Structures are given as C-alpha cells and as structure tokens.
C-alpha cells in the first residue's frame, strides 16, 4: 500500500466512523493535539476527546441510516503527511430513493502518528469542514431551518438553486409523511382506550334511560291511586319526578362525555394543524391520561399504574390548539407510564406511579408530569428530543414522539424542562404562557 492509499483509506474510515459514531475507530485515527474548525454545533475544538465528541455530535440530528458520497477529491503529498481537500454529500435512502441532507467541503491534514516513527501509520491533525459558500453556511444543522427556508441564499447558478429547492421540498414531504405516520401510530395506541372510554358513558346513558322508563311506569301507577284523600303531593310522584330529573342530568352528562371523546379523537387524527381556541387545560389533560391509561391496559392486561392528579382550579382558559397540545401531553404521559411500569416489571415491589400536577401564576400555567421510573441517564439527556431517538425496542417507538412534543410546545411559545434522578424519577415540566386574552 502506498502512502497515498493508506492516508485516503484512513480518511474514508474517519468519515465512516463519524457517521457511525464509532468512538474506538475515531480514537485510533486522531492525533492527540488535533484541531477542528466547523460550522456545525461546535465552531472550534482542540484535543483528542473534544475532537471525538465533535465528530459524534456534529451529525447527531440527522437520521441514523445516513451515508456519504464523494463528489470531488484532491490529494497533496507533504513531508511526513498529506492534505486532502474534498467535497462530499451526506444522504440517506428512503424507499429506494436517495435524499441528500447536506453537502460539505472539507480540508484535512494528515500526519504521522507521534509515537510511531517506524511504521507509516497516519492520524488526523486538522480538519476544517463547512458548507460550501454557494450553498450558504448556517450555524446549526437543523431540518427546521432548512424547511422554513431561512437560508441565506445567494445562489448564482439557477441549476443549483432549483436542485436545492427540490431537495428542500423532498425533505419537507418526507417530514410530513413521518409526522403522519407518528400520528397514525398514536391513534392506533389510543383506539382501545377510546373504545373503552366511549363504552362507559354509553352504558350509563342506556341504563339511566331504562330506569326512567320504569320510573314513569311507577308514576302512572301512583297517579291512579290519587283521590280526594290522597293528593299528588302526598303521593310518591314528586319523589319519582326528582329521580327522573337526576337521571336525565346523568344521561346528559354522559352523552356529553362520549361526544367530547369522539370530538377529540377526530381532532387528533386530522392531519392539518388547527387554530388556537379557548381550551380548558385541566379537562384536556384529565381526558388524555384516561385514554392513555386504558390504551395501555387494553394492550397489556397485566399493566397497572397509580395515577395521581392535582389540578389547580384557577388555571385559566388558554388559547391552545387542542389537537396538537393533547398529542404533546399524550406523548409525555405515555412515556411516563411506560417508564414507571417498566421498572415494576424488573422490581416486583416497585409501585408504578405517575403524578400529574397543574398550577399557575400571573404569567404562566405549569404542568408537571412525574413518574417513578428508572430516570433518564445523563448520557442521553441531550438526545431525547432528537428526531428518531428512542430507547424502546425497535417497533415499539418511532423516536418522533418527544421531538414532536417539543415542537408543539415551542409553537405554543411554551417551555419544556426535564428533571430526572436515576432510579428515582423523571419529571417533565411544561410552562405555557398566559396572555391577557386568556382571562
């Protein structure tokens, strides 16, 4: 193998290791004093460990099954090393179609391994990777910024401009498809819960109607007994009428309950995002945790969990998009129940618990959803909002739930914080702003 072949193959290995977050491989290819310039999350990094984390984090926001393709490469031989200049694309394949996520330009300086004078073995000393100017550099690689078209485009070539627009459109379509898939998946999870939740009020409607029919029969019999010595007032009739009234109220109440469940289900499955409307947040959360609970129950009959709720009655009616915000809470509550219940499968005496609290001050409403599951390890704390990141076994989660949740809360100008203690708890704290219009 010539020196050129060795260095080029090391460079390919470096890119491979970066895409696969292969730290061991990266460590063997990087000089202890290496430096990188980038235009991604990190602007400048120095030293082996920092450079490794630069490589593993720089592309973390992109999907897992990404790959790279060389567009052009230039090799310059130097004393004790070499310079590689190249342009490459990062893409992934969906339904046999390649979708380019990024085009990058890289200058990399390779040198001899310090303690390796004898064998010709090469390590990376410096790397500068950025977006080519004609594509417009931006600070953080984010599909949202791409989608919102906030790129500072100064593209001279019409051809390139068209290609970029086409890529952005493909990315947008892809994102919409995935979001739709996630919505459908959550509807699937909910179906059993919804069936159960509708059946209950309907049973009450039927039963109370039946009782009213019996009561009317009794009232008729009573009226027949009425004569000059036994007035209607003395008879059972007033009591029976009171019972009928109470029963009708119950029928009305349970009819409304079924109606609101069907309404929210329709909202939930609708693809497009709606408009903010006055929403009773306590009622919405109450409804959705029940749906989530019965959904899990129906899927797994051994599933059991204690759910405590403390709703602050002074929470004002907020302007919210109910179908979106309900999905956000559903995702968090589902995760909380999954976590708490998961721990009790490992430890028999663990009593799974989810505690939902609402409170408010003048400026915002605070919603806390706390579970006594295994907690979120520090290593993955930063990753849980990334699209496609999931700790569930494959097939159980799309990895989109929390990233959608985060976007929904951001869209409502709210904030989302996480507090977690390994083996003790995880708490999601959502704050939604109260505007003057909410009172």
């Amino acid at each position: 193998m010539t020196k050129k072949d060795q260095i080029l193959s090391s460079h390919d290995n470096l890119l491979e290791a970066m895409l696969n977050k292969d730290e061991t491989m990266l460590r063997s290819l990087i000089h202890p004093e290496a430096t990188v310039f980038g235009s991604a999350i990190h602007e400048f990094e120095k030293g082996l460990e920092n450079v490794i984390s630069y490589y593993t984090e720089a592309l973390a926001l992109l999907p897992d099954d990404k790959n790279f393709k060389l567009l052009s490469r230039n090799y310059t031989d130097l004393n004790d090393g070499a310079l590689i200049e190249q342009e490459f694309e990062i893409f992934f394949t969906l339904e046999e179609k390649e979708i380019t996520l990024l085009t990058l330009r890289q200058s990399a300086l390779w040198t001899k391994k310090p303690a390796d004078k004898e064998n010709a073995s090469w390590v990376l000393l410096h790397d500068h990777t950025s977006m080519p100017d004609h594509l417009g550099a931006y600070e953080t690689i984010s599909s949202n910024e791409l989608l919102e078209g906030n790129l500072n485009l100064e593209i001279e070539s019409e051809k390139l401009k068209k290609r970029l627009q086409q890529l952005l459109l493909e990315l947008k379509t892809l994102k919409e498809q995935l979001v739709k898939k996630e919505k459908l998946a959550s509807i699937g999870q909910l179906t059993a819960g919804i069936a159960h939740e509708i059946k209950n009020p309907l049973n009450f409607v039927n039963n109370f109607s039946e009782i009213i029919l019996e009561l009317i029969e009794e009232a008729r019999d009573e009226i027949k007994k009425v004569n000059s010595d036994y007035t209607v007032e003395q008879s059972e009739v007033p009591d029976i009428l009171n019972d009928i009234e109470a029963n009708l109220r119950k029928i009305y109440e349970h009819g409304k309950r079924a109606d609101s469940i069907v309404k929210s289900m329709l909202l939930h499955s609708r693809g497009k995002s709606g408009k903010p409307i006055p929403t009773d947040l306590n009622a919405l959360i109450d409804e959705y945790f029940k749906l989530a609970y019965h959904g899990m129950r129906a899927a797994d009959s051994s599933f059991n969990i204690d759910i405590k709720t403390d709703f602050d009655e002074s929470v004002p009616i907020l302007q919210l998009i109910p179908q979106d915000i309900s999905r956000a809470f559903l995702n968090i509550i589902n995760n909380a129940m999954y976590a708490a219940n998961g721990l009790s499968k490992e430890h028999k005496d663990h009593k799974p618990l989810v505690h939902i609290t609402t409170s408010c001050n003048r400026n915002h409403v605070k919603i806390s959803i706390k579970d006594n599951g295994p907690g979120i390890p520090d290593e993955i704390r930063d990753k849980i909002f990334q699209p496609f990141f999931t700790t569930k076994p494959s097939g159980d989660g799309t990895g989109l739930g929390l990233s959608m949740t985060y976007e929904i809360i951001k869209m409502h100008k709210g904030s989302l914080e996480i507090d977690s203690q390994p083996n003790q708890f995880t708490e999601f704290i959502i704050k939604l702003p109260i505007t003057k219009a909410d009172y």
Partner: protein
Amino acid sequence: MKFLIVDDEKDVEMLFLQKFRKEIRKGEIEMIFAFSGLEALEILKDTDPPDVVYVFSDINMPVMSGIELLQMIKTNYPHIKVSMISAYGDNDNYQKAIESGAKEFFTKPIDFTSLKDEITKIVNS
C-alpha cells in the same frame, strides 16, 4: 344482607341504588359502595368478621385491579363470595378471575336481569 359494589366510576352507585330500589326498600338487601380496591378492603375490615356477604367488583381500576382485590379477599375471607364485572370480557381476564376463585363473571354493559337473578338466588338460599 349486605352487598359491596366496587367500581371506580362513581355513578355506578346511583345506578345500582335505583336498579335495586325495590329490593332495598323492602329491606331484602343492603348495598354499599367502594370506588377502589383499597377502599373495599377498608370496608371489609370495619366489622369482624365482615358483614358483607357478596362483593361485585370491576376489574379495570387504578392502583389495585379487581383481580388483585379478588385474590386478597379470597385469601383473607374465603367465605365471602366475589364476582367480577368487566368491560374486558377477554379469555385472559376470565381465566384469571375464575382461577382466583371468582363465583361469576359478568360483562359490561351490565345485564341487570342476570345480576338480579344472581342476587335473588343468594337472598333466597
């Protein structure tokens, strides 16, 4: 004769009291209600031995499921009859209930005619 009904749906109380109002008025039966498994166990502890002769319990309840309640009642008070009332009439639930000593398994929506038959049988025996 005291019957204990366990269900986390509070309106079950109003429903049962009206459905069995004639029997209750005549003094043939007495009905009390608990809205969770734990509350049911508390009620059974109130008198020693418990004066409840028959428990009808929902299965799907938070904290303690109806099946767990059934098992605890059967362990501590084997003479008390327990029947289940559940919206989930699947084989899994049914098998578990019967194996744990449930007398009958009623599905929701409740067929009050068969429930009344069951109660009348107990009252007349």
